[in-house]
Structures are given as C-alpha cells and as structure tokens.
C-alpha cells in the first residue's frame, strides 16, 4: 500500500505541514514545514503564494512562542510574587496576542485584593493602556496618585499616556522630572528622544541619544549603543532631507 506522504510534491507537503501545525501546534512539524518552505522559496523566490503561506507559518509560530512566554511569566510570578518585571512582560505579551481582556480582569482582581499596593495601580493602568483604553488607564493612574502622588512608575506611565494622546509637551515635562529623580534610569531619555523626534525637534532628540550612548559606554554597555547610533543616523537623514527640500524650493 502506498503512503500518501510519499507521493506528494514538496509544495503539497509544505501545505500539509502548515495545516497540521495550525491545528496542533507541534513544533517539530513547524521545523519541518520551515525547511520545506525555505527550500521552495529558494527555488521560486517570486511565488506570492509561497511567501503568503510561509508568512502564515511564521505568524503562527510567533504566536505560539508568545503563548509559551506567557506561561513562563505566569510561572515566574507564581514563584517570586515580589518581582515587578514578569508582570509587565505578561501584560505586554498578552497585548501582543490581543488578549488584553485577560490581564485587565486579572489586575482588577489583584487591585481589589491589595488596594494599598501602589504597583497594582501601575499594572492595571498598563493593561488598559496596551488595550488602547487610554481613558481607563488615566483613571487608574489618577486613583493611584491619590495614594502616592510621587510614585515613579505611575508618573512614567502618565508621561507615556500623555505622549500617546498627543500632549507631548506635558509628557516631556514629566520626563524631565523623572530624569532628575533617577538619572541612572535611561527610560525617560529614550522616551524623550522619541517624543522630541515626533515634534520635529531633531537636534534635541539627537542630544538625548548622545546622552544615552555616553551613559552606556561609561557603564560597559557599548554593545547596546548600536541602536541609538542608528536612531541618530535616521534623524540626521531627516535633517538632511529637510535641508535639501528647503534648499530646492527656490530653484
């Protein structure tokens, strides 16, 4: 008796593996499917259908990887409830999966159980923020700041919220306060750089990136200066394009 898998073409095999992986999520099937699609794409680099199917495979694989990450963060929280980091990762990963409702409900329950823990306001506000629910996020931040008006995490999130709402000058003012309060935390320099660039204040944005690079180099973190350098190059390209545009209008 002939095995149907032996008679199929590589294209048919790839499609079958994609289908199986989508249904069962078996990673060994995904690995086999990836190899098949990579081989097919090497032979047919202009086949739109192949690119589409391979993209679907990678998308499904990415989602399954994020689901595995969610399980890791949940386990980390279970093992060490005092850590803040895994909560933020959990909220971010759930948002990437479009499952913000789950974390909104989770952190509402946690806040109800521990209303005097300021970090719970931060978790819930971020869960709403990543759900695109800025009004709710703002209400949670305001409530948390009734309890602790100077909480660093809530101020940081408020700056992000203001930036997302287009209230960039107000966001920058909070960032300035945060930089003074904790000069070792680069977060506000990164965020200020993005905000200043969005405002078209390119030279100031570059100055922020240069501060970040200087700090990283001084702390033996030169590995992480590549991205800030790329950001500076991108902004300089924008400045050059603006100058060229301005110079070209009169000719």
């Amino acid at each position: 008796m002939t095995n149907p898998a032996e008679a199929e073409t590589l294209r048919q095999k790839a499609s079958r593996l994609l289908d199986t992986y989508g249904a069962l999520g078996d990673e060994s099937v995904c690995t086999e499917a990836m190899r098949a699609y990579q081989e097919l794409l090497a032979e047919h680099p202009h086949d739109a259908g192949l690119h589409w199917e391979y993209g679907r495979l990678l998308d499904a694989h990415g989602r399954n990887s994020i689901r595995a990450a969610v399980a890791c963060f949940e386990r980390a929280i279970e093992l060490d409830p005092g850590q803040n980091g895994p909560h933020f990762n959990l909220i971010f990963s759930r948002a990437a999966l479009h499952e913000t409702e789950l974390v909104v409900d989770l952190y509402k329950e946690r806040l109800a159980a521990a209303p005097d823990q300021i970090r719970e306001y931060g978790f819930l506000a971020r869960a709403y923020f990543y759900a695109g629910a800025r009004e709710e996020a703002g209400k949670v931040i305001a409530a948390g700041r009734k309890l602790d008006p100077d909480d660093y995490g809530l101020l940081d999130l408020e700056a992000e919220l203001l930036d997302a709402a287009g209230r960039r000058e107000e966001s920058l003012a909070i960032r300035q306060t945060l930089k003074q309060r904790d000069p070792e935390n680069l977060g506000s320099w990164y965020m200020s750089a993005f905000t200043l660039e969005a405002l078209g204040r390119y030279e100031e944005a570059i100055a922020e990136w240069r501060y970040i690079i200087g700090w990283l180099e001084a702390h033996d973190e030169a590995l992480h200066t590549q991205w800030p350098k790329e950001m500076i190059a991108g902004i300089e390209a924008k400045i050059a394009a603006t100058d060229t545009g301005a110079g070209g209008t009169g000719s």
Partner: protein
Amino acid sequence: MNGEDVTARMWLELSALAPDRWLAIRRAVAARIAADLLAELDRLPRPASRLDLERQLRAGQLAHRKVA
C-alpha cells in the same frame, strides 16, 4: 499648589501626626480609592473585545486556506 501637591502634603502630615495609626489609615483610604475606581471602571463599556478579534483572525485564516 495643585491637587496632587495637597494630597502629598496631607499624607506627609498624617504620617507625622499619627505614626502608629498611619498604616491602618492608609489601608482604609486605599480600600476606598480602589473600590470607587473599580466601580467606575465597571460602569464604562469594556475595551474592544480583542479576544474576539483573535478568534476572528484564526477563523479568517482557516477560511482563506480553504479558498486557496
């Protein structure tokens, strides 16, 4: 002086005036703040149903697969 400054000052003075009862006061106030907040959040419509979106996405991919 804005509302946040007043709140910060009030907390500071309370903690100085009643150090022995400070934690109990803070817990009681926090319980009230959180209860009011959660009640208000429950009155608002829920954010767009992202879970539904995800399910639609998966169903859509299956539908596309069948068409293809």
